[in-house]
C-alpha cells in the first residue's frame, strides 16, 4: 500500500475511534441507571447493622471493629443480554448485587432487611444466619422503603403499591393494603396507626392491627418521604415541593411550606423547630406549630439523607458527602468534614459518634462533640 493509501486508512481508523470514543462517553455516562442502595444503620447490643452496597447485611462490632457478613442477597434472574439486567435499569456489570435501600430493623433476636430483589429477610442478630425469607420462592416487586416494627409485626410498602404486615417471628403475611401506585417510603407508626406515602400523591393512615384505612391526605405530588410524628402532628415532604403538617388523627391540613425542590428526606424536630432538608440545597428551620420559617441554611449541595440530633446539634450531610453541624441553641452552622463521596442514606448516631454510609463501601465516623474524624470502617467483604 502506498503512503497516500496508508494515510487515508489511518484517517479512517482515527475517525472510527473518535466516533466510538464519543459514543462510549456519551452513552455510558448517565448516572443513576443501576440501583446501588443507600441503607442506613441501626445499633443493637454494641453492633451496628447496615445493608452494604454489595447487597449483604453487615454487622460491625463497635468495640473492636470486627465485622460479620450475611450471605449476599440473591438477585432476580436476569433476562437481559451482555450481563445486563432489566432490574438494573439497563446498567451492566452490577447485576450480581442486590441493592438495599431500607435501613435494617431489629426485633428481639432478629434483624430484618428488605432487598430491591423483592424479598424480605430475617437474620439471627448474633450469627447473621438466615431465619426466614418472604416470599420463599418467587420475588415481589422491588422494595425501596424500609421496614417498620411495631409490637410483633413488621410493616413495609413495595413497588407493587401494597403495604404488607408480617408476623415478625415467622414471616407470615398478616394483612396487605393496596394503594394506587408504587411505594418507596418507610412507614411510621404512632398510636396504633401506620402512616405511609405513595406515588399516587396520597399519604395513607392505616389501622396497624388489620390494615383498614382510617383516612388519607392527597398532596399535589408523590409522597415518598418517611413521615415524622411529633405532638400529634404529622410532618411529611412531597414531590410538589411542599412540607405538610397534618393532624395525625384525621389528616386535616395544619400548614404547608414550599421549598424550591423535593423534600426527600425525613425531617427532625428539636425544641419545636422542624429541621427540614431539601433537595434544593437548603435546610429549612420551621416552627412546628405554624410552619413559619425560622431560618434557612445553604448547604452548597442537595440533602437526601435524614439528619441526626446529637447533644444539641443537628448533623446533616449533603449528597456530595459534606457534613455540617447546626447548633440548636445558637443556630450556628459549621462544616465538620468533607468525605468527597456520595451520601444518600440516613445517618446513624450511637454514643456520640455519627456513622455515615458512603458510596465507597465505607462507614465514615465522626465524633459529634469534638468534630474529630475517626478511621472509617470498610464494609467490603473479603
Amino acid at each position: 500500500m502506498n503512503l497516500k493509501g496508508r494515510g487515508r486508512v489511518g484517517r479512517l481508523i482515527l475517525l472510527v475511534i473518535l466516533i466510538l470514543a464519543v459514543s462510549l462517553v456519551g452513552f455510558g455516562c448517565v448516572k443513576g441507571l443501576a440501583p446501588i442502595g443507600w441503607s442506613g444503620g441501626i445499633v443493637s447490643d454494641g453492633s451496628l447493622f447496615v445493608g452494604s452496597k454489595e447487597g449483604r447485611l453487615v454487622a460491625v462490632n463497635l468495640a473492636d471493629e470486627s465485622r460479620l457478613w450475611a450471605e449476599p442477597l440473591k438477585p432476580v434472574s436476569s433476562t437481559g443480554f451482555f450481563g445486563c439486567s432489566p432490574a438494573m435499569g439497563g446498567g451492566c456489570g452490577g447485576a450480581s448485587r442486590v441493592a438495599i435501600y431500607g435501613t435494617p430493623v431489629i426485633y428481639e433476636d432478629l434483624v430484618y432487611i428488605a432487598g430491591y430483589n423483592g424479598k424480605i429477610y430475617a437474620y439471627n442478630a448474633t450469627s447473621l444466619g438466615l431465619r426466614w425469607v418472604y416470599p420463599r420462592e418467587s420475588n415481589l416487586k422491588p422494595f425501596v422503603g424500609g421496614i417498620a416494627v411495631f409490637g410483633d409485626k413488621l410493616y413495609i410498602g413495595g413497588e407493587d403499591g401494597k403495604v404488607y404486615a408480617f408476623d415478625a417471628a415467622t414471616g407470615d403475611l398478616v394483612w396487605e393494603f393496596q394503594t394506587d401506585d408504587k411505594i418507596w417510603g418507610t412507614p411510621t407508626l404512632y398510636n396504633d396507626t401506620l402512616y405511609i406515602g405513595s406515588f399516587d400523591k396520597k399519604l395513607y393512615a392505616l389501622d396497624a392491627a388489620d390494615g383498614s384505612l382510617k383516612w388519607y391526605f392527597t398532596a399535589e405530588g408523590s409522597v415518598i418521604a418517611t413521615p415524622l410524628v411529633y405532638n400529634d402532628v404529622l410532618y411529611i415532604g412531597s414531590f410538589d415541593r411542599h412540607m405538610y403538617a397534618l393532624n395525625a388523627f384525621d389528616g386535616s391540613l395544619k400548614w404547608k411550606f414550599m421549598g424550591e425542590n423535593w423534600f426527600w428526606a425525613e425531617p427532625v424536630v428539636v425544641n419545636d423547630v422542624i429541621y427540614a432538608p431539601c433537595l434544593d440545597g437548603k435546610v429549612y428551620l420551621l416552627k412546628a406549630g405554624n410552619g413559619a420559617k425560622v431560618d434557612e441554611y445553604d448547604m452548597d449541595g442537595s440533602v437526601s439523607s435524614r439528619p441526626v440530633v446529637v447533644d444539641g446539634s443537628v448533623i446533616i450531610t449533603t449528597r456530595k458527602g459534606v457534613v455540617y453541624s447546626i447548633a440548636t441553641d445558637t443556630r450556628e452552622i459549621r462544616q465538620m468534614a468533607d468525605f468527597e463521596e456520595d451520601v444518600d442514606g440516613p445517618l446513624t448516631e450511637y454514643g456520640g459518634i455519627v456513622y455515615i454510609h458512603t458510596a465507597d463501601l465505607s462507614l465514615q465516623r465522626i465524633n459529634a462533640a469534638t468534630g474529630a474524624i475517626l478511621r472509617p470502617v470498610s464494609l467490603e467483604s473479603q
Partner: protein
Amino acid sequence: MNPWELIIQQPVINVLIVMSHYLGDSFGMAIIALTIIVNILMLKLTFSQIRSSKAMQDLQPKIAELQKKFGKDKQKLSQEQMKLYKESGVKPAGCAVTMIIQMPVWIALYQAIMLSLAVAPEGLLNLSKYLYPWPIVYSVLPLNREFLLLDLAQPNFILAILVGVTMWLQQKMSMTISTDPRQAQQSQMMLWMMPMMFALLALSFPSGLALYWVANSIVRVVLQYRVTGWGGLRRKPAEPTGDADKKYLKFDASEEKKSTDEVGADIVISDSEPSRKDIYHPSKPTKTRYQPGKDRSKGRRKK
C-alpha cells in the same frame, strides 16, 4: 452542573417532562414527539448527509471505471479519485462530519430519556437537580412509564424486534452499492450487524430507549425516502458476471424500458452465445446505453 448538563441535558429533560404533561401524561408520546421535533430541527444536516451519501453512490460507476483503468497504479488511482470527487463537488468525509455534528444531539436525547425514566431510585434522585422551578414539572413527576401496555422502564421483546427491523430498513435504503467486492461485503455485514446489535441492546435496556430508536429510525426512513426513494431497497439488476455464462439472456425491461421506448430501439433476444459487450451492464450505464444515431451496433437487427 457542568456546561453540557446546563446547556443541553437540562433543557431537553424539562421539555420532555412538559411534553409528557401536555400529551396526556404519556412519556411514550413525549419520546416520539421530541424525536420528531429534533429530527425536524436537524433536517438540513440530515438531508445534507443523505445527499452526500447519494452523491457518493452515484459516483460508484465512475470510480469503478477508474479502478479498472488505474488499478495497478494506486497513487494515480487515488489522484484520479480525488479529482473526480472535486469535479463532482462531493466530499467523501461529508457524511461522517455531518454524523459527528449530529451525534451530541442524539447523545443528549438518549441521556435525557434515560434520566427522565429514572429506572433506579438513584435515577429519580439525580433527576431532581435537572428540574426547572416550573410547577408543571413537579406535578408530573415521577413520569407515567406505561405506554401502549408497555412498561417503558422494562425491556420489551416486540419493541426490540422493531428496533432491528426499522434500523435494517433505514440502513438498507441508505446503503451505498459498491463495485469493490470487499467493500460490498463490508456493507452487507454492517447492514445486518448494526440492527442485530441494537435489537440485542434493546432487550437489555428500558424499552423507553427502544421506543426512541424505533421512532428515530422511522423518521430517518421517511427522510431517506424523500431524497433517494427506496434506495437500496429496490431490487438489484442482474449481475453481469453471472449472466455472461448463461445461454439465454432475459432483458430486464423495467430498468431500460423508458430509454428504449423513447428512442424506439429494439429489444433483442438472442439464442446465440452472447458477447460481454452485448450484455446490459448496470454499473456502466453511460457507456452501454443506446444513443440515437451513434451506437446502433451492427449485431443488432430490427424487430
